[in-house]
């Protein structure tokens, strides 16, 4: 059954996020041959519409309004609902990001539709679109289908492969004018804390520290390693509780769940709550002084040793590899 599917192209620092390309690939599975319509919302977005088409959108609808220069729940839900009203789609896909998590439930509520959040895989099977998603922070998985109405999902970054970029593709771009009213929440200030703009949930490499890091300064070698690998820094609850770092870095059953290509756990014992947040990473490296540490049970590669010796050596070795390749 061919379906028309909308995909919100999410913009961060003037560029489309990778997860939006992944969302286009998810939309292709849902569409089963139907049309994929990219949606761009912001104050000035037209520079990005081609990119959405290259990655799989058949056409793009843009909503531009100066009141949409920053994400707000009110502004973006009004804009997205207006596009939905115009297009009347059978499917809708967003990234499971701060924006996707915030706006999707509101839109689903307004449309009285279901919403399958935090999807890690998607397939067409037996006449249904089947979504796979982690539950209990990845201790188990469930497969879900939509039984009534719009097929609406948010997808977790880094899990669904984007389509190959094809600069030969072209498509129609239209603008929809939406009156944005009653913005009831106003952003006064944005404080940047994330390291070098590499977002933890989208990072391909995560270097994570636990109690073994011992201090705020102890995170410095981890940051250097993350930087060489173009990755992000994370932490265990132990490190956050000890005030070595901000709670926004916490990975685990409370905190963020990450699935990078490479997860390097430094001085982390591997409590079950932490494992829930990272054990579905593709490759796990553990560095810990204690050979009995639980983390070695889930690690693909382990080094028993002091992280303050191992991590700087590792950084140097990766630097060399970078120079050679």
């Amino acid at each position, binding site marked *: 059954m061919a379906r028309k599917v909308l995909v919100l192209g999410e913009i961060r620092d003037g560029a489309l996020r990778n997860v939006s390309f992944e969302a286009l690939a998810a939309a292709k599975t849902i569409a089963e041959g139907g049309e994929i319509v990219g949606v761009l919302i912001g104050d000035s977005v037209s520079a990005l519409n081609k990119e959405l088409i290259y990655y799989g959108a058949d056409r793009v609808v843009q909503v531009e309004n100066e009141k949409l220069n920053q994400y707000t729940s009110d502004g973006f839900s009004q804009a997205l609902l207006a596009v939905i009203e115009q297009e009347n789609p059978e499917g809708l896909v967003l990234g499971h990001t701060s924006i996707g998590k915030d706006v999707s439930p509101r839109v689903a*509520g307004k449309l009285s539709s*279901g919403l399958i*959040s935090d999807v890690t895989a998607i397939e067409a099977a037996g006449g249904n679109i089947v979504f796979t998603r982690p539950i209990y922070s*990845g201790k*188990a998985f469930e497969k879900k289908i939509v039984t*009534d109405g719009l097929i609406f999902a948010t997808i977790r970054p880094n899990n669904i492969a984007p389509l190959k970029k094809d600069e030969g593709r072209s498509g129609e771009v239209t603008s929809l004018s939406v009156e944005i009213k009653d913005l009831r929440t106003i952003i006064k200030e944005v404080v940047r*804390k*994330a390291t070098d703009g590499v977002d*933890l949930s989208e990072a391909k490499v995560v270097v994570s520290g636990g109690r073994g890091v011992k201090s705020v300064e102890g995170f410095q070698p981890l940051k250097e390693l993350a930087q060489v690998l173009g990755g992000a820094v994370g932490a265990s609850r132990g490190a956050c509780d000890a005030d070595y770092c901000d709670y926004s870095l916490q990975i685990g059953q409370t905190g963020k769940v990450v699935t990078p290509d490479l997860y390097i756990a430094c001085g982390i014992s591997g409590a079950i709550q932490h494992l829930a947040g990272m054990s579905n990473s593709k490759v796990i490296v553990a560095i810990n002084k204690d050979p009995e540490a639980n983390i070695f049970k889930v690690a693909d*590669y382990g080094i028993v040793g002091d992280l303050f010796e191992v991590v700087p050596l590792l950084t140097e070795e990766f630097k060399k590899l970078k120079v050679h390749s």
Partner: protein
Amino acid sequence: MNIYVLLKRTFDTEEKITLSGGKINEDGVECIINPYDEFAIEEAIQVRDAHGGEVTVVSVGSEDSEKQLRTALAMGADKAALINIEDDVENGDQFTTAKILTEYLKDKGADLILAGNVAIDGGSGQVGPRVAGLLGIPYVTTITNLEIDGSNVTITRDVEGDSEVIETTLPLLVTAQQGLNEPRYPSLPGIMKAKKKPLEELELDDLDLEEEDVEAKTKTIEVYLPPKKEAGKVLSGDLGDQVKELVHLLHTEAKVI
């Protein structure tokens, strides 16, 4: 101030997940208040203590959720409501829960509604924003600080590691992120008092809802456990050589670098 907290009973984070008959096995499992909802309860109590008013905790679930509601009362909430859907709803989803909570809340005149930003079992994080949308009030998700001055509210929220400072007004729904506060443990006198605090029990009928009004829009067709991860290679030898070997393995065997 009229404050409501949305609470969900979840498995303890220590619990291993097992299956029985294709479903999550709940036998003998220790349950707790969803940890993010604990932040919401703590914040509600602090707001009440600073500004006056009353805190009501509400949960959609089964009889078993009474224990977690009593714990919230022992922490310091004033009243509780349990919307027991055990007999009416077999397979609900977030649409179901949000619809029920909205029916319960719609004539309560809540000034502030707090919830966890996500439950650690289902992990969808939908119910809070859905309820706010249905009630027609603004909402702010993943908050790490809340300041109320009259009806003006200043909030700090976590946005993927960065933070945003937001200004808004009551009535309002917020969802709690880690770092908002340190939830208190129930004190012994608190536990004694909690036994006498009012806990109202409701069913769909009491909210003028029929089963078909809350019928789920999605369905779980399979639950499975991830393949057990086998312990990998622990390297040995001189530390410098181990590091070299690791980088080599990541590059050529695992091919992630």
